[in-house]
């Protein structure tokens, strides 16, 4: 994944494009995003399908070549860490 900065709110995300139609976006802090801020609370923010400003910034990064389009070679290495739900002892409060 490559860093992309939103042209409007300057949030920095990690983005990946396997193809033009595919997009993966890993946000860090999403609280700066103006579109989400308009949405309201946690619920409304999460229910926002996407931010148009960020989407446009990613398209710009693709056009300028900053964000390469193609399947990442490291996908397998990166994505296949099993998530095991290693259960912790239950602490009763």
């Amino acid at each position, binding site marked *: 994944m490559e860093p992309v900065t939103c042209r409007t709110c300057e949030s920095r995300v990690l983005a990946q494009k396997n193809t033009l139609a595919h997009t993966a976006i890993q946000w860090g*802090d999403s609280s700066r995003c103006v579109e989400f801020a308009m949405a309201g609370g946690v619920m409304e923010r*999460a229910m926002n399908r*996407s931010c148009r400003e960020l989407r446009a910034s990613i398209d710009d990064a693709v056009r300028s070549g900053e964000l390469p389009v193609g399947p990442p070679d490291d996908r397998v290495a990166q*994505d296949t860490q099993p998530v095991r*739900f290693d259960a912790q002892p*239950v602490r009763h409060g």
Partner: protein
Amino acid sequence: MTATQEPEVRTIESAAPPVRFARGWHCIGLAESFRDGKPHGIEAFGTKLVVFTDSEGELKVLDSYCRHMGGDLSQGTTKGDEVACPFHDWRWGGDGKCKRIPYAKRVPMRARTRTWQTLERNDQLFVWHDPQGNPPPEDVTIPEIRGFNEGTWTDWSWNSVLIENSHCREIVDNVVDMAHFFYVHYAFPVYFRNVFEGHIATQYSQTKARADADIYTSGEAGGPTGPGSAEATYFGPSYMIDYETTPMVFGDVQAVLINCHYPVSPTSFQLQWGISVKHPEGFTEDQANEMAAGFAGGVETGFLQDIEIWRNKAKIDNPLLCDEDGPVYQLRRWYEQFYVDVEDVTPEMVQRFEYEIDVERANEIWEKEVEENLAAGRTVVTAPGNK
């Protein structure tokens, strides 16, 4: 080729399912179904709960096993504001306190049992489960169904089934599973996007029926005129609201589907689903109900298709994915937040993540497969009841 040149055989990794149960609001059924004046038993979270109504009509939930000698309160009776144990008639209030022992002079100290915090929303009853015993944070709640107060909606058609030898994570995996729509549900997923943030995970999709699948009853109203769209969101680990819009000749049909579950044991869960359909304008009550029944039937067929898979599949911690698959690992990281103590929730579990699958190539291939089936006169499935 010698054996050494071949890639190693992939092994399925699978650790024992977690012993703890998810933190969150869990729907245990339609509120109305508990309002018959009798106590109701619910096997959940490795124990049994009792649900009863106090004299104000408020639903209360306690541990069902009586702290006196272990009697099962759900087999008892409701007496006034309390539930009375069938064993020795101890009376337990909705606040968890033993209020009265009819044959004793006084109630012993510490005569207190576990209460479960409840929430009534969307005609359903929820209990809050947290192994750490904390109350629900304010922003972690079950929202009201959007648009439910506009127009007329049919009564919930509600179903429940116990799934054994399976962990509820299997059903949650479905949120990111684009390809199973074609193979399991006989529909083309023509659009597919996921967003996870906080305790919320959504699947946005558009699907259209396979022409070679004899499964979707179209009835008098005819079939859909284009792809249907769905916005399906988990609010926490176990309660999903799915807004479905299906274009028909007479206009869009709006339906809301609830897909929820609660764990019974570490290896079994109670799966529930309900559906309500908005009366289309110009429809009589009867027509609307008939159409809703048809929709509910279709949804039920879909669930049974998934259940068949879950009942037979292996638990797999290390799925092997291709580029057209959804973000299974990221979804599981999101889901893991409900299985760790709140102070151990890491940023990766809750930070916003978006994923849009390129469905174009997969759909091209599937279209060809369907065309070939049609040309050869093959039908992929005949649902019972469909000719």
